[in-house]
């Protein structure tokens, strides 16, 4: 009997180690590009154009690459602040707008409801590169050209299909009784939404917020076309300059540093909120 117990235990260990070996191999594939870039970006300027073999700095750690990055455009801090402004504003507005819309779609009946919902979702299917010109003209008419606010509004719109879909599902998942209990308790409209329902759809909000942040932080074409002065440019525009190279040569060190600078905030935001995010995404995707 003990032998059968041991046999079972041994088998369990074998299965387990095979599982984790596979897991480690997979993790290496998905992590390696990040690690290689991060380590390489701290090599001396002279090493920047050498292959990252090994990827870590061999002749001392240096921030040459980052210093170099700062010489593009109006300096990296300026662009970073612009990017942060646009991203945060996009997050705030997207959350506010999609929260209201998700609630309206989930809980109220009104004429053309489904048509309007499909309309919002359908915007997902339009290649937005092709409406840049009309967008530019409309923004100019609204006096929002070359303004971070205008860019933010465009980003918010781009986020809406996904966000409204998510928030509607999130509200659908909240039991109607909670809302009814609150109505009996005398909470109505915005008070009901903010004090009672908002905390219940937080995972959905986190998902929407992360997506809004990531997309606003990373978008470059609209930023490039819709903004037109150095001080207004966001980081991705800076990155196009880095990519285009300077004085006829790409500086790979700047590319590595740029990738790191572009990536780190996304990773931080994601890792901070991922508990909610995974839940929200998984809850939202079922429908």
């Amino acid at each position, binding site marked *: 009997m003990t032998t059968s117990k041991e046999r079972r235990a041994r088998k369990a260990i074998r299965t387990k180690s095979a599982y984790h070996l596979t897991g480690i191999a997979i993790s290496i594939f998905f992590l390696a590009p990040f690690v*290689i870039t991060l380590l390489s970006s701290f090599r001396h300027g002279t090493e920047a154009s050498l292959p990252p073999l090994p990827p870590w700095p061999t002749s001392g750690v240096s921030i040459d690459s980052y210093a170099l990055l700062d010489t593009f455009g109006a300096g990296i801090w300026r662009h970073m602040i612009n990017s942060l402004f646009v991203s945060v504003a996009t997050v705030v507005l997207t959350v506010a707008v999609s929260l209201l819309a998700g609630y309206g779609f989930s809980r109220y009946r009104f004429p053309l409801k489904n048509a*309007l919902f499909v309309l919002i979702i359908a915007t997902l299917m339009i*290649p937005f590169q092709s409406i840049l*010109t009309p967008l530019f003209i409309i923004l100019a008419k609204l006096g929002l050209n070359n303004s971070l606010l205008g860019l933010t509004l465009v980003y918010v719109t781009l986020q*809406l299909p996904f966000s409204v879909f998510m928030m509607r599902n999130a509200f659908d998942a909240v039991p109607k009784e909670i809302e009814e209990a609150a109505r009996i308790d005398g909470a109505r409209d915005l008070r009901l939404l903010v004090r009672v329902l908002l905390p219940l759809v937080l995972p959905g909000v986190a998902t929407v917020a992360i997506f809004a942040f990531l997309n606003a932080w990373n978008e470059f074409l609209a930023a490039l076309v819709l903004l037109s002065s150095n001080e207004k440019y966001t980081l991705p525009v800076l990155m196009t300059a880095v990519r285009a190279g300077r004085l006829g040569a790409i500086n790979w060190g700047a590319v590595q540093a740029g*990738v790191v600078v572009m990536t780190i905030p996304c990773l931080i935001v994601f890792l901070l909120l991922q508990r909610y995010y995974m839940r929200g995404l998984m809850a939202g995707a079922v429908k």
Partner: protein
Amino acid sequence: MTGSGSEILLPRRRRRRRSNWRGLAYIAPAMALVIVFFIMPVLFTGWMSLHNWPLMGASRWIGFNNYFRMANDTRFMTALSFTAYYTVIVTIAIFAIAFPLAIFVEKERQFVGAYRTIIFLPVVVGLATASLLWVWLANVDSGFIGPALKALGLVEKSPNLLATFDTAFLTIVVMVVWKIAGFTMIILLTGLQAIPSELTEAARIDGAGRWQRFRHLTLPLMRKTIALALIVSVTGSILAFDQFYIMTAGGPQNKMISVVYYIFNQSFVSFNLGYGAALSIVLLAILVAISIVQLWLLRVGEERP
């Protein structure tokens, strides 16, 4: 209904109508944004597509000529077929990777959360940034892949991955899989976890092996989820632009011009905005049609009565 209550009905009707307005009020900000920044530009695009609309100077009404022109535009046809090719390959690749991954991380066990997070990490990086990162990795002299292959002695000379179509295409597909597979995985994971464990157990008792369970239970029960993942993946692939623009600039020899890239070129390189607009409208129609066909093929509607 009874006639007797008609007078009393009046105030209540009014109340219900008020709640209609309330629902509309909640969605108003979203609708305003969509109308101003999407519907109007799209209508405008439709309008432009009926004109010869140069970037600068006066536009001229030409009816449906832009659409007729498309039929003989071999470069557009090439772009379409490349996009179709890319979509098929990349979708297959993503599913071929993401499905096993979803199964791999399905059960709650030690470190599984870490694996999920790690696989998902590339999703949070922008496509443009990811492209840039992989351009570097794939660079023949300063990158990682070629020199590493050479250092390992697998090749004699570091290969220039982006110089020929096949290797460049492969690089892009690998990059996209690296970047997207985590997202698809999570969607599929949702579907997997929605399958009650009792069903799998019942099938085990019924004597269905792993593959049979996958074939007879998992796949049919995940139809809705697969449809969602498929539509997301196909739509994304058809709209692909950044990766070609940044990684190969459409090369080598213009073999990687996707439809959106072509529209971009027509509008902003050749400045045929009208023609570009017409192409956009056609692309939109194609996308809507493909989505409908996918939903229909997977018969999403009739899943449960």
